[in-house]
């Protein structure tokens, strides 16, 4: 997609934030509705409202993106606290589309639970937080919006109040999250101490020449590491990943989808922005070589995630670990910014992977939600012969699995191979090789699901499907996600162009 020549401007700048604003407004609307009419008769309405909200936000974000609003340096708001550029809109699109799918899928999943409105408003608020994160251009706004994402997420994970797993997951997520945010805040304070500002651009400016680093290098380094820790928590990267398997497994499946896809992406967008804009590698390399840092994190993360996933018995937990593994892949986007090769390929590849991942991973978790809805069971054995009962959903799941594994049936193929190519281009062969080994291993465990569904014989636990029937909302969500995943293979060009534009803009590389 080639952006228009002269970027169209919006009458008041703040309109550029429309997606985020829409989300917030709809969240509040939900509260209003709920307080006006607190009985559970109108679940559908609430769900619909939430879906409409997220979808509309998605549409707006997409339109802005394709119109090329904020192409280049982007629309800067509130003294540069927020900036709406290509990258921001691109990620808003990811968040909102994931949120839409989740809302759609949750309709059936939450049958018979109370306080539906709370659920959806939390989802929308979290999405708002993500949108703000995507646009944040200052450590302050980043911190606030990050917490705006975190706090609802805690609630969402623990949403099933009477389900031990859900509560335990919420507890762990919360505690680890609290710890991480404390670390994050402390790190910010140190960076502020060294540079005297929270605006990313000013931070970078203060680091120029690097005389501050000569005597305060240590403090700054510690700060950077702690900030990185905060992001590692959001992206579920080692060593801050420990919450992820539990939270994804224990949480309601749609929430797992939401967190593992959108929340992860949110963590990455700020990581990209902060490290590239605020800590330009050429000026901080001497003090803290964060490229090396992310290389280490990438290797450890993807290896741990994939190897641990390989031997799981529980599909949902397998997906949880694999999500950790994918965090490792995307970290290549930062780990390969060695200055050699062209950074916009790796960075853009990371963004594209997150986009595709948003659909395929969400779809996969929603399929798990579907199975949980049926109450068939959670282990691979329980999935045996599922294709005989639910072929369409199983085709979709097969698409998700193979696309996650990097086979050319969905966009995951291209994005993963973009990442590998980028790593090679940056001269980190070994990183690409590690990724390759992991990817092959992931093919093994993803295909276990496919094998169970298509190859194995049913073992008599499938008749429950007939009991509960085929839920429309979940099916719709799963199928849409599958179609999107497949379409993103040939149609990736629409977004890849934008992504590379945005990446190069962030990297200050003239496109």
């Amino acid at each position, binding site marked *: 997609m080639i952006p228009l020549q002269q970027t169209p401007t919006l009458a008041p700048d703040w309109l550029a934030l429309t997606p985020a604003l829409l989300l917030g407004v709809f969240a509040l609307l939900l509260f209003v509705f709920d307080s006006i009419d607190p009985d559970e008769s109108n679940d559908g309405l609430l769900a619909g409202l939430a879906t409409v909200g997220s979808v509309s936000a998605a549409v707006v974000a997409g339109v802005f993106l394709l119109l090329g609003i904020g192409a280049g340096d982007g629309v800067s708001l509130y003294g540069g606290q927020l900036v709406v550029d290509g990258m921001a809109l691109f990620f808003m699109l990811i968040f909102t589309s994931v949120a839409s799918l989740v809302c759609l899928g949750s309709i059936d999943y939450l049958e018979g639970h109370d306080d539906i409105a709370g659920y959806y408003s939390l989802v929308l608020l979290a999405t708002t937080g993500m949108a703000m994160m995507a646009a944040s251009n200052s450590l302050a706004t980043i911190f606030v919006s990050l917490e705006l994402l975190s706090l609802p997420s805690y609630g969402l994970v623990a949403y099933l109040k009477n389900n031990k797993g859900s509560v335990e997951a919420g507890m762990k997520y919360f505690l680890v999250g609290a710890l991480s945010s404390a670390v994050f805040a402390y790190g910010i304070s140190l960076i502020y101490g060294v540079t005297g500002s929270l605006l990313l651009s000013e931070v970078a400016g203060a680091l120029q020449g690097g005389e501050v680093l000569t005597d305060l290098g240590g403090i700054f380094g510690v700060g950077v590491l702690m900030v990185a820790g905060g992001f590692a928590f959001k992206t579920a990267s080692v060593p801050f990943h420990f919450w992820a398997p539990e939270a994804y497994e224990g949480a309601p499946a749609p929430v797992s989808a939401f967190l593992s896809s959108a929340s992860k992406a949110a963590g990455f967008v700020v990581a990209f922005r902060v490290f590239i804009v605020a800590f330009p590698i050429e000026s901080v390399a001497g003090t803290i070589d964060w490229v090396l840092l992310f290389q280490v994190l990438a290797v450890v993360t993807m290896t741990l995630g994939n190897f641990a996933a390989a031997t799981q018995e529980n599909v949902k937990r397998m997906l949880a670990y694999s999500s950790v593994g994918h965090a490792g892949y995307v970290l290549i986007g930062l780990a390969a910014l060695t200055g050699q090769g062209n950074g916009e390929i790796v960075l853009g590849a990371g963004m594209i992977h997150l986009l595709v991942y948003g659909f395929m991973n969400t779809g996969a978790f929603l399929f798990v939600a579907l199975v949980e809805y049926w109450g068939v069971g959670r282990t691979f054995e329980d999935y045996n012969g599922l294709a005989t009962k639910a072929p369409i959903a199983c085709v979709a799941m097969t698409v998700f699995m193979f696309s996650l594994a990097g086979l050319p049936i969905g966009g995951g193929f291209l994005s993963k191979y973009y990442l590998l190519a980028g790593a090679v281009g940056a001269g980190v062969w070994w990183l690409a090789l590690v990724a390759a080994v992991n990817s092959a291993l992931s093919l093994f465990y993803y295909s276990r699901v496919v094998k169970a569904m*298509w190859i194995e014989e049913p073992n008599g636990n499938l008749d429950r499907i007939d009991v509960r029937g085929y839920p429309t909302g979940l099916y719709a969500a799963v199928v849409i996600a599958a179609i999107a995943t497949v379409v993103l293979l040939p149609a990736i060009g629409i977004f890849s162009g934008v992504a590379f534009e945005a990446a190069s803009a962030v990297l200050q590389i003239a496109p």
Partner: protein
Amino acid sequence: MMIEALVGLCLVGALVVFFAPDEYAGKLAFGWSLLPLALSALMYLNFDGRGNALLGGSLAFEEQFTWIALGPYELTWFMGLDGISMPLVVLSTLLTTLAILSAWTPIDERRNQFYGLVLFLEGSLIGVFGALDFFVWFVFWEAVLIPMYFLVGIWGGARRKYAAIKFFVYTNIASLVLFIGFFGLVFGLGDSISSLALPEIATALRAGELGPLAGGLIVPEQLRLLAFVAMFIGFGVKVPIVPFHTWLPDAHVEAPTPISVLLAGVLLKMGTYALLRFNFTMLPETARSLAVPIAAVAVISVIYGALLALGQSDLKRIVAYSSVSSMGYVILGLVAYTSYGIGGATFQMVSHGLISGLMFACVGVIYNVTHTREVGDMAGLADEMPLTVGALVAGAFAYAGLPLMAGFAAEFFIFVGAFQSTVIAGNGMAVMTALAMFGIVIVAGYLLWAMQRSLFGPFRFDGDYEVTRAARHDIAPLVVLIVVIIALGTFPNDTFFRMITDAVGPLVDGATAEAALGTGGGSP
């Protein structure tokens, strides 16, 4: 749009068949597969390509337009055929049709899914041979794995799950490795290329545009070597070359016969085809400098594979290992860099495809009846199923390189081409060739051995099935294959070899003129 139409036909057919009612699926799939077959035949008759697709030849049925902008590089939808790929496309369509026919008897459950996947496989295969842009090619290359996984995993034999996952992961690793190797080259080329179109890359590489990678971290020489080795291993797994061959016997033995036919007939050729297109076309100097190890690998594959075949007692395993052996000849021919060598290698791809297909089909027909493939479990089948046995004997002798059959033609070309090659100083290639040629003795050995034990002698069958004659639609593919094999062996030039050598020419002329002139020799 011919190639697109071909691929499209297959994929649409796949969908149609996939959702067709189970009982008609077989006939429908067969009927549908006749369309791509006819189309490819039409293309073959109207083939007007000249020269090598990657080296500035004029393509047949060319089609190119931008697909994706990958940062600095353009991914284009780029399809076209030259004398090397055209025969392989025909091979794919023909073998698929015959495989579908031979699947009627053995496949008795979930037929619509089976035939749908087969047609999907056909489409991907044609895509592999037709694509001339790296990413398009790679998409099809990987797409082939998906149907194979199901076809082996669902309809396979006892250890099908193990075989399927082994094939799946093994070849996937290979793909990743070759991808990394190839992109090392791409980034090494830097700005000298603007797209991932293979011709552009090949031209740039041969023009010596390759620069250092990652700011001098890896100098061009190392880069060439690394990339070559990575791609060689990556493709070698598919071929397969020793020691990366162990997925093959399992996959072959467990796969249902029609799939074995396609696996041996076409899928292995993907590896050698890619080797020819990438390693030996793009990095000729490196290939020459590595001629000794490569030729050694070829010889080892030939002899070791043949010995392994000799050691087996399962008919399918025998044929499977003999494929390893035959593919070794292809490698030998490729590294020779003479028109007879590379041309013969390409011709061998086609002929081995047909012959191994025939062999597997025959074994399959026998298996349908006896439900065993163990040589020891049967004897004297010739009396009970004369036609099948006749076809098997014909196939065996074709395998053993009987003149006027395709196998002999291909192998003789390879031998002549390799023998006169000068890529190894002091006529080393002549020695390698002589060694590899001993394969023709061993192959005759194990095939005749197996036939004598299982087909001849007094009739004996340990098994509680009634041995009956095979159905017509089981025999038909065998007959067709035999006819084609003899036609290719008797008129190699008029069928494929002329177009092959025409496409191979640019590869060798620049390479060793004097070898191509048949005067390449050691002594001054």
